[in-house]
């Protein structure tokens, strides 16, 4: 088997090989990136805890639950802990600087969310400081905030009587060990918000968006959910209790056709590049007719002729694909940073990398098949006949 011929053939037209490989690199890079976007959009579902339930209004995402519900939920057998989650919906300086802010029970937050790890600052300060907040590490990168800073957040829902912004003091910077909580959220004390509403310093809905419920070990998920739902079946606000994964899935389901759209784009890219590589390999096969004739005349079998072209195609696509995957891995931190607002879970997973590599090798096989098959069947007499 004349191995070095494969490399020599590829290098015979360095410009063309480079062009084909480059378009392959771009295609694989694009496919990996698109898939990582989909992975990022659906990340919350993957990391959801199995011992947590979400109690929310059965009517609408925009309807709050009364504060009195928390005590009643806590009484249900099997419930170990409850924690308020109230969407604040504010922004920093300009509406385009958008990230999630939640008012939570500072005294229960860590117990409800053991995956949240405070990297800087004193975890206990969150409870001790009324206007304190925990911020995700992505936010420190994005806005340069550090522990001790006072952060002004402009409201959209909770207007202050003085017409100004809310101020929160950064007491800690956290990271999450799982993907269900992103690293770009601001958590503050719900009591701080509640007091402002009660004292008339601000206006807005008095209730709470959702209660996160942590189950006691061994509690039956389905039974507890049903029991909570039944509690409020006759109003004033009906509730819907779901697992955390189901709750996250609702948001993914809201994306509707978006994952399909991104998938179709990937399909289009793949198809276009398949044809391009196929074209290159067909041309290579045609140009090599004479060389192959000589190889066969020297006594190498049909299999060798077939393998020469097939391996050339595989090598070309494999190298192109590997570089494409490599680029997407290298660019992942930059993308993660740039997209942290819209797709905080952006990640090039191992499966994505494997998919990129697998697809490029598959392209190689498909593109190499026709010319290689022709090479295998080539008759020496035909191949060596000078062009008319």
């Amino acid at each position: 088997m004349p191995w070095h011929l494969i490399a020599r053939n590829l290098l015979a037209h360095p410009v063309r090989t480079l062009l084909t490989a480059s378009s392959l690199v771009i295609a694989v890079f694009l496919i990996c990136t698109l898939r990582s976007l989909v992975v990022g959009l659906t990340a919350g579902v993957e990391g959801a805890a199995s011992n947590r339930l979400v109690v929310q209004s059965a009517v609408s995402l925009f309807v709050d639950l009364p504060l009195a519900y928390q005590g009643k939920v806590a009484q249900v057998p099997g419930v170990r802990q409850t924690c308020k989650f109230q969407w604040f919906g504010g922004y920093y300086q300009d509406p385009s600087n958008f990230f999630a802010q939640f008012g939570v029970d500072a005294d229960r937050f860590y117990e409800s969310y053991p995956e949240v790890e405070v990297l800087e600052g004193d975890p206990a300060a969150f409870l001790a400081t009324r206007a304190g907040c925990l911020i995700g590490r992505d936010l420190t990168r994005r806005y340069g905030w550090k522990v001790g800073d006072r952060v002004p957040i402009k409201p959209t829902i909770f207007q202050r009587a003085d017409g100004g912004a809310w101020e929160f003091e950064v007491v800690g910077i956290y990271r999450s060990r799982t993907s269900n909580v992103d690293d770009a959220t601001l958590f503050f004390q719900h009591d701080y918000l509640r007091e402002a509403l009660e004292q008339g310093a601000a206006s807005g809905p008095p209730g709470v968006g959702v209660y996160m419920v942590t189950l006691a070990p061994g509690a039956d998920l389905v039974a507890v959910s049903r029991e909570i739902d039944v509690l409020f079946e006759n109003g004033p606000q009906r509730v819907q209790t779901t697992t955390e994964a189901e709750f996250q899935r609702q948001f993914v389901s809201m994306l509707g056709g978006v994952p399909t759209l991104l998938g179709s784009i990937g399909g289009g890219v793949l198809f276009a590049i398949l044809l391009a590589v196929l074209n290159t390999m067909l041309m290579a096969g045609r140009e090599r007719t004479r060389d192959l004739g000589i190889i066969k005349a020297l006594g190498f079998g049909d299999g060798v002729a077939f393998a020469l072209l097939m391996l050339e195609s595989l090598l070309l696509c494999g190298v192109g694909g590997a570089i494409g995957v490599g680029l997407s891995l290298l660019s992942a931190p930059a993308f993660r940073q740039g997209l942290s607002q819209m797709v905080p879970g952006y990640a090039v997973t191992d499966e994505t990398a494997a998919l990129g590599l697998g697809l490029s090798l598959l392209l190689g096989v498909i593109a190499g098949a026709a010319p290689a098959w022709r090479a295998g069947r080539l008759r020496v007499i035909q191949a060596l006949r000078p062009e008319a």
Partner: protein
Amino acid sequence: MALVPLTYTFRSLLERRSSTALTVVAMGATVATLAGVLALQQGFQTLFTASGREDLLVILRKGANAEGESGFSRDRAEVLLKGLPEAAADADGRPLTSGEMYLAVRRPKEDGGETNVPIRGVQPQTFAIHGERLRVVEGQRFGPGTDEVIVGRSLVGRIRDCRLGAVIQLNTTPFRVVGVFEHDGPYGSEVWGDADRMSEALQRPGFNRVIAQVVPGADLAALQARLDADKQVPCKVMTERAYLSAQTGALSAVLLSLGFVLALIMGTAAVLTGTNTMLAALAARTHEVGVLLAIGFRPLPIFLSFLLESTLLGLMGGVAGCLMVLPLDGLRTGTTNFNTFTEVAFAFRITPTVLVTAVVFALGLGIVGGTVPALVAARLRPTQALRRE
């Protein structure tokens, strides 16, 4: 200076039929992908802005950007509903104004999952304001003060219980669907009912916004300034068209930037493959170029001839791309408008803008991809080119 005959270009393309076809289809796939994204953006934009009216005002609480965030108590809304001198009136002299209660509620989708469907409680004058733009195509309008609703046609078949005769439960109150309506604008993805009954069922006593049809020639700037400064009810006043385009800014921008980034990346890949094809074509035809040079054609005509060939490939690719994307026209899809967090249904629209953009893009790919090979061809020396291996 004699140009290389056009027939040479056509014959060359025909001679390498399979290679030409592959290049055209590959380029077509690239163009079609981009045209698809653009068609989506067009469909979305038409839905929201084409239907927005200039003579219909949307009045929100000051500080709110969308009706979901806005809110008026009933008595404050009454001030606007009854006391707007610019408002047009119907034949009986009643002002053409309506208070609207709005809430996006959870509804299960037919194909699984859940989405947020806008529920709008409206007052009787609404039908007079919307006039011909709102057409009940099945059943009838809901009766005032009854637990009846009408559903937008875009919801039928996609959202469970959105069909004539079905029952939609809002919190604890069941509402019966008595009609299906069509609306040229985004209202076609909503459920409409009586404002008072819906307010009670959803325990939301106020209105989210007030709409008012204004008399022709009303001074809108003055009205805006007056209501903005109003002590009792400070408001933000926008025309319906301005309001709707503000609601779609984010999604439209996402689609356009997605299209732009894809065009850049995929375009680069397409140019590389185009260059490649032309280089290979040239390599196979070096001898011919030598002959052309030897019989007296100058380098410039040869350059133009190769560039023309590549441009033709691009044109064919563009046409192929348009043909591939045409079946998408009218295909409906839905996603959440993240400005409002509600579900909107819209269709791919292959508008002339899409087709022209696609063809121009493909021509550009052909020209850029053909330049280098054409230069190489033009710079060949006859003796070199004619030398037999």
